[in-house]
């Protein structure tokens, strides 16, 4: 079984959010992933994110493809609808779902195999359309469910558990996203919840496609010496380049804006992300410089993390397709159907 219901015991002292819900209301079934799996940390960060953003669970749609990562939508927000689709095709399902109901919060959870191999085309096209959604890649460099083959994100020279050396060059999700015109590109580490939660909040609030590539080690098949996606390797090469704070609309900004290394970006709902740079050369609002920086540091085997790029201005899919503000599913039939009188008029053209 990969789904078990959690016992419904709620501690009376648990904190509640503005909706009167506790974090328990955002949890899902008990995870059946391996103990210590990075994906479970991402799941718990998502629970915290939804709870703290005061999002009604039933207004969330969770979507995924196939793989260990894609099972995780069953492990959070059990009061949200979920769509565990086919391998690599979640972006199209999310695109279609979003096109007819723009008012839900869409969270896609995918993996490196699901997104960078079989689903690479769909990922690129969802980015290209700027579908308004949070797209999380739990990236561990291996195929877990089929027992440890390299994925397309595995670095050249990294070794498998049984010693095989990877020879095919990797695809970098963030570099890809930047190239495809992604409007929110971040990288993080499942072991750094402090960094991850504000990124998830910002990504979910961002209007457009928010991609967060999360190094999320596979404890069973890819956590050994020689792997570049292990806990140890990631911790040693971890560079929190941009520190991200998420400030909800009503709250005051407490970080000093006089600091030259701080950039504040307003999101469409009035909330803000405040980015503190550890490297003053870096400009997360300049796509080209973000690309160059990321490429340079990746080549040096540094895992550059934080909100790497943000563009709040680019129109999303609904704007480019010139669709009304009202969700299409809420438009009544009598408005949609041209009726008999119109049909008669139309038919006169065919005589």
């Amino acid at each position, binding site marked *: 079984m990969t789904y078990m219901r959690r016992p419904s015991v709620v501690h009376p002292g648990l904190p509640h959010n503005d909706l009167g819900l506790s974090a328990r209301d955002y949890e899902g079934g008990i995870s059946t992933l391996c103990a210590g799996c990075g994906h479970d940390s991402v799941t718990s960060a998502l629970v915290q994110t939804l709870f703290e953003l005061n999002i009604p669970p*039933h207004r969330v749609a969770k979507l995924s493809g196939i793989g260990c990562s894609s099972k995780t939508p069953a492990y959070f927000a*059990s009061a949200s609808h*979920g769509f565990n689709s086919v391998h690599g095709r979640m972006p199209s399902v999310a695109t*279609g779902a979003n096109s*007819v*109901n723009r008012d839900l919060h869409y969270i896609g959870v995918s993996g490196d195999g699901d997104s960078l191999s079989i689903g690479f085309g769909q990922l690129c096209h969802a980015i290209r359309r700027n579908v308004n959604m949070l797209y999380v890649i739990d990236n561990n460099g291996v195929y877990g469910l089929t027992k440890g083959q390299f994925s397309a994100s595995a670095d050249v020279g990294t070794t498998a558990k049984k010693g095989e050396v990877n020879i095919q060059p990797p695809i970098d999700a963030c570099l890809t996203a930047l190239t495809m015109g992604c409007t929110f590109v971040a990288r993080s580490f499942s072991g750094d919840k402090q960094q991850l939660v504000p990124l998830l909040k910002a990504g979910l609030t961002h209007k457009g496609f928010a991609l967060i590539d999360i190094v999320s080690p596979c404890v069973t098949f890819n956590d050994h010496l020689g792997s570049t996606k292990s806990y140890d390797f990631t911790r040693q090469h971890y560079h929190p380049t941009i520190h991200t704070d998420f400030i909800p609309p009503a709250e005051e900004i407490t970080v000093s804006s006089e600091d030259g290394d701080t950039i504040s970006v307003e999101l469409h709902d009035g909330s803000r992300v405040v980015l503190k740079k550890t490297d003053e050369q870096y400009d997360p609002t300049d796509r080209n410089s973000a690309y160059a920086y990321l490429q340079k540091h990746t080549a040096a085997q540094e895992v550059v993390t934080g909100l790497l790029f943000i563009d709040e201005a680019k129109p999303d899919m609904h704007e480019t397709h*010139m669709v009304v503000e009202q969700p299409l599913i809420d*438009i009544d039939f009598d408005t949609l159907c041209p009726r008999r009188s119109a049909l008669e008029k139309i038919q006169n053209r065919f*005589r």
Partner: protein
Amino acid sequence: MKTAVITGPKDNDFTIKVGNVNGTGSASANTLLMKVLFRMGIPVVAKNYFPSNIQGFPTWYEIRASENGYMARSGRIDVMLAMNAETYQKDLACVAPGGYLIYDSTWPRHNVLNRQDITILGVPLSQLCNDNFASSRARILMKNIAYVGVMAALLDLDMEVVRELLNQSFASKAQLLDANQLAIDLGYQYAKENFECPLPFKATAIGKTDDHIIIDGNTAAGLGCVFAGATLGAWYPITPSTSIMDAFRAFCDEYRKDPVTGLSNSCVIQAEDELSAIGMVLGASWNGARAFTSTSGPGISLMNEFLGYGYFAEIPAVLIDVQRCGPSTGMPTRVQQSDILSCAYASHGDTRHVLLFPANPAECFTMSVQAFDLAEQLQTPIIVVTDLDIGMNDWMCPDLQWDDNYQPDRGKVLGADELEKMESFHRYLDTDGDGIAYRTLPGTHAKGAYFTRGSGHNMYGAYTEDSDEYKEIVDRLLTKWETAKGFVPRPELHGTDKSGIGILSIGSCHDAVLEARDRLAEGGISLNYLRVRAFPFNSEVQEFLDAHDRIYVVEQNRDAQLRGLLLLETKVEQDKLVPVLHYDGLPLYARFITDAVRTDLSRGQAA
């Protein structure tokens, strides 16, 4: 047995074929010729044989005037307008004995290319146009219009109607109107002065096209999707289905766009491939919208995985498959009915899909609406299986009908109030015993949440690898399949003869079968005819199979796919079903069927 009646051309009953080079602007001239006949009240159908190419390849356009309203290809050419030197030899050969060939006599014609049994008429079309038009483009285009003038004289077309159509086409372009009128006159005058006009067969106004329209099936299907209330069309361009989405988009722009803001209350997304197109449709339908995709055989192949998902996770979806000639890329601009089996059982595992088979553009309209109702009632993908002949050719159809009282059937969907009152909701519980469980839409109510998956699940919607729980689900899907038999359109029965001989057919074979049946009856052979309109087959199909000893199964593919489906899904004995298979890529015609039936029956008599 009486001998077969071979009918030649007569007034209001003839076929004109035009051979052109594609990309030379002949379409408007050919449409004009067809429309004149239609407006004169003569039932007419056009078959366009075009290449999978942009410019320079041969293309043919057949116009059949049929007083009896037969919409199938005639299988006989009475007048050939041979405008393409490259195909001249072939075009000459196709004319029925006693027929006519018209060619551009500006250039010398090789003596070898002659026939004594037909009349060859030369018209210096290029010369006439070169003398009267300045630009090279106009000379090419007007040559086409000029042959319409020639035909007007030869067939005694109503020149008032010709003028009226030109006026309508060029209402806002006076210069073009003058040029076209001149081209018509050039051809008309030349024919009048040089040939005996009209020909022994001609057009006479008969008023048989009132309350009819000329429309192609793709336009009708796109229109049906608008009337059904579809709000998402997701697609990938593929011949011959592309014009469905073109039509949907155009009608949406007209009827659903706010003229001030330019914002639309529908969305058309050109996907990156067919995999994505069907994924979008499933996502949107899961979210509660009416969504559809249009495609052809290769697209169905690509959509297989998601079709299995839609079947197993029970998500509505509407697909319109405009069949073309396979296998593989095949002949993309030629017709076949060769997706029947691949649609019926699309995807791995035990899957079956509900199919609708329109026979003409009017049914493309009604069945596309029906498909959305069925998809939501049955919570499963519905494929409207049409074809290139219906989809891209202009057919005469009775006026499309619409009842303003129609309301979409959204099937079993629980709303927030119902969920609020329920203790708990389970997605796949069959509470009504019809195999159809209740579903909920995202965003409605926390109690309605469930996890949609293509992996093994039980009746509560939870993941399972338990054999009994798995079987409960797939067995219930069979119950739903039985329910579907009562929901899908019933077959259409023609005839109550007791001869025990029947014809069973499908889709665009229909008009050829009706015509063949009439011809056979004239020869003393009476056949009952059942047109299957949907899969699964309901009891009436079984009854027809039971009631006849010999049944000709007429279809347009090599492997007798409809016959195969009948053998798999009914209790019919194999020997009863005689395959009549037409699969060269051109539309079926009546004589092909009458020949097959006669040959088979005479073989039976000999034995």
